């Protein structure tokens, strides 16, 4: 270091010893915990992404099956196509409700984690 860079300064030596200590002795653990929480949250977000995609596929396929295919089926076990369609649609709607509830709960839980 040149003399121009470092002229004599009375307090230089004292500043050289002025490093402060981190007041929180638990700092290391705090950072590690936060890192782990962030990693967990990242994983959760990936899972919820998959869930939303599969949910959308499920709804689309269910709609196609109930509107296009069931009406063209022959009677099965004495049940007319109309009745089959009704049974399928009841199961389909219940499944959608359960999955939607699950997704909403999951999404809210993750939102709480973020805050």
């Amino acid at each position, binding site marked *: 270091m040149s003399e121009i860079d470092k002229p004599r*300064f009375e307090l230089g030596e004292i500043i050289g*010893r002025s*490093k402060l200590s981190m007041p929180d002795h638990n*700092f290391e653990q705090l950072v590690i915990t936060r890192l782990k929480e962030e990693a967990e949250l990242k994983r959760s977000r990936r899972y919820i992404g998959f869930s939303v995609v599969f949910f959308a596929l499920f709804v689309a396929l269910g709609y196609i099956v109930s509107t296009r295919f069931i009406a063209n089926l022959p009677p099965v076990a004495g049940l007319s196509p109309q009745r089959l369609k009704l049974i399928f649609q009841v199961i389909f709607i219940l499944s959608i409700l359960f999955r939607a509830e699950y997704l909403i709960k999951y999404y809210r839980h993750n939102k709480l984690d973020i805050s």
Partner: protein
Amino acid sequence: MANSNETESLHLRKLLNGDESGFRYFIKAYQDMAFTLAVSIVKDDFVAQEVSQDAFIKAFRAIKSFNQQSAFKTWFYRIIVNEAFARLKKSKKDILLFYDEYETDVALEDSLDINDNEKLEMVNEAFKLMPANEGLVLRLFYLEEESIKEVSAITGWTKANIKVLLHRARKRMLAIIQQKKIRI
């Protein structure tokens, strides 16, 4: 020094592999300096701890983008400095120049009849009364013994600007301490 660099490289590899001991090594090694630099800028212990924590998280998250051309220290200090200035900008609370009249050329050792610990305490107090940029360059230059070039790499400021800041900071530090001494 070579040994220390090897240890750091070893832990850097661990860090890149996601090994927890690598994270712990860097937190232990740099937490005090992170806090010291942050407090030089934000002037508040609690905020400085938050800034340090955020800086570590950001650094670890971005560790794969660290190209190892510069030292880890330089790269990490730059993150702390950016984080601390961002926090300062948010709070809009930078120190106004309370000590603009700093006409002093008196050597401190001659003028202050106090021991080293008291001087150290006064210096740390004086840092809290200095503008963020001046406090930062003084700390980097004298505490970390960084060259003007390295200070420039950490702060992103020009070398000429850093020299001016250093000159002002030295004068201001002396002036603050002289005035505090009068009050004692």
